[in-house]
């Protein structure tokens, strides 16, 4: 069993992502978030469990549903929220927004709007680590839908033949937009595809941060030991629709009820309490602290300025010409 400290950490990380996303939802409700939005609500345990097993110098490669990865990896909620609001104080100076939310200093290689485009980038980052001998690992998140894109096979293969320190994290939330995975994947688990690339793989309950964490610890060890990639498939579920206005009516009621009753924050909290790592009161205290942090981050974001229009011309190249 993991240490009590780790359980507290897992609870804290899961909750932090949750509260961040709730703040986003709140700001969105106030019409302050331009563009679209793919909330991480419901999948918090995946980002929390994976990143808790990683070091600061390790990398994560994110997706269009990236807020959770970025916050869990340690990005500044202030800069992240400011980015979502299109403010000049945002981590991308307002140029990226929700789908490109990224904080390099926190070890995030980037969120990307192109489904499955992060896999090759993770291969390259892991190659860097291997060639430079830094021993850093790269966790690459992607969805069930992404597993059907060509980069999946290409990247799993390349990581396998070069024994790169990558952890492939499939967040299988059973849908790609409105398309149920049953329509687009012939097998029960995506993980089965990793066998073809001699990549060790495991399927875990993605709503249980501890299960995710334990799988991640093993994968991280394998990667750091030079034994190559691992694929972790996390079964999870979106709390809401795919994007801002999607009511997700296409999900069968019983299925949704089943999953939504399995709240990732509650689950890890219960475990932590049961294992005596934390009391209800301590848990509440952590929540209060995080709520305050998000409150302040929200305030910072709201009060920040929008970028001056001409800034649109900057950052295309290292130097202008």
């Amino acid at each position, binding site marked *: 069993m993991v240490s009590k400290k780790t359980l507290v950490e897992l609870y804290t990380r899961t909750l932090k992502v949750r509260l961040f996303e709730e703040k986003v939802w709140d700001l969105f409700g106030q019409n302050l978030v331009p563009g679209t939005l793919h909330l991480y609500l419901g999948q918090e345990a995946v980002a929390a469990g994976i990143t808790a097993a990683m070091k600061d110098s390790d990398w994560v490669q994110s997706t269009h549903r990236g807020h959770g990865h970025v916050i869990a990896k340690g990005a500044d909620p202030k800069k992240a929220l400011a980015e979502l609001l*299109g403010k000049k104080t945002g981590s991308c100076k307002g140029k990226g*927004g929700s*789908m490109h939310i990224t904080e390099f200093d926190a070890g995030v290689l980037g969120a*990307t709007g*192109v489904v499955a485009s992060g896999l090759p980038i993770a291969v390259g980052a892991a190659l860097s680590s291997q060639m430079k001998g830094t021993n850093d690992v790269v966790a690459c998140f992607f969805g069930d839908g992404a597993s059907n894109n*060509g980069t999946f096979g290409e990247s799993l293969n390349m990581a396998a033949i070069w024994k790169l320190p990558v952890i492939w994290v499939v967040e299988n939330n059973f849908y790609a937009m409105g398309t149920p995975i049953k329509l687009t994947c012939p097998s029960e688990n995506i993980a089965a595809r990793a066998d073809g690339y001699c990549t060790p793989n495991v399927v875990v309950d993605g709503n249980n941060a501890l299960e995710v964490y334990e799988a991640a610890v093993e994968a991280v060890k394998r990667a750091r030991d030079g034994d190559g990639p691992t694929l972790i498939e996390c079964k999870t579920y979106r709390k809401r629709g795919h994007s801002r206005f999607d009511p997700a009516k296409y999900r069968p009621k019983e299925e949704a009820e089943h999953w939504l009753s399995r709240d990732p924050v509650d689950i890890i909290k219960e475990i932590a309490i049961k294992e005596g790592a934390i009391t209800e009161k301590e848990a509440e205290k952590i929540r209060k602290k995080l709520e305050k942090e998000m409150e302040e981050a929200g305030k910072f974001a709201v009060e920040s300025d929008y970028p001056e*229009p001409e800034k649109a011309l900057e950052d295309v190249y290292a130097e202008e010409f």
Partner: protein
Amino acid sequence: MAEITYREALKAGLREEMARDKTVFLMGEDIGLNWGGAFKVTKGLAEEFGEDRVRDTPISENTIAGAAVGAAITGLRPVAEIMFGDLITLAMDQVCNQAAKMRYMFGGQTSVPLVIRTVFGGGKNIASHHSQSLESWFMHTPGLKIAVPAFAYDVKGLIKTAIRDPDPVMFFEHKLVYDKKEEVPDEDYTIPFGEASVKREGADVTIWGTFLMVHKALAVAEELAKEGISVEVIDPRTLVPLDKKTLIESVKKTGRLVLVTEETKTGATTAEIAAIVQEEAFDWLDAPIKRVNAPDTPVPFAPSLEEYFIPDEKRIAQAVRDIV
């Protein structure tokens, strides 16, 4: 004849062709029952024609395009949708090396009667990966035809022509014109490829542009008319084949040309048009041809930045004033 949106007109065109010809079918991500297309263009069609003919696919752009190629050369008429134009980057081999070149490299042994629908343009604050305008890449790919409808009437007539065409057609739409309304006939009609539409006649300067920029140009023309400047507005409707004749004749009349599209400037379709016109109407030009485009940057997210990025009425009007 009723006033309907571009989206409805497009859907009507698709529906009528599916009813007319049972070899026509649609395939793409989330075009079916649960979603009806990211921009709801195909909403209701899966219910009407079945999931076989309105086929949800995995997120496999290159194979979607390639499957359309395979279906087209064996007797079907696929209309494949790539959800966002930016994602066609993943299907470039099947589109540009296979679909476009098959008739030629096989010496005319096969036709490739497919349509690839996708959508370009910004204005929705969805940033660099969901807002581009990449039509010039395809204009530089011999073997493809390209439709760029900007109006409800045009989109219905052009989608029908596209579906009936024996060659691969890139059918480009624009996010901000889906809601534009116009009177559209209920009955069957087609619009031939290669015929521009003069959306407004004028005598002093010609504006040629595509998609939302045609709408903006019309607003500018209205505005400038008050100042006594008479603007002719031309919408090419298809880029390949290109109606050079209507444009050249207009330029010979006005002597001045402003080109305006939402593409980033360098290498945009406006470059090709400028090159053609100076080649073919050099002696009639009274001033340099002006190009109004987006700057050479990715599309930014923040509203303040994106508004700056997309050409607006002010810049178009300024370009006109610069040369009259």
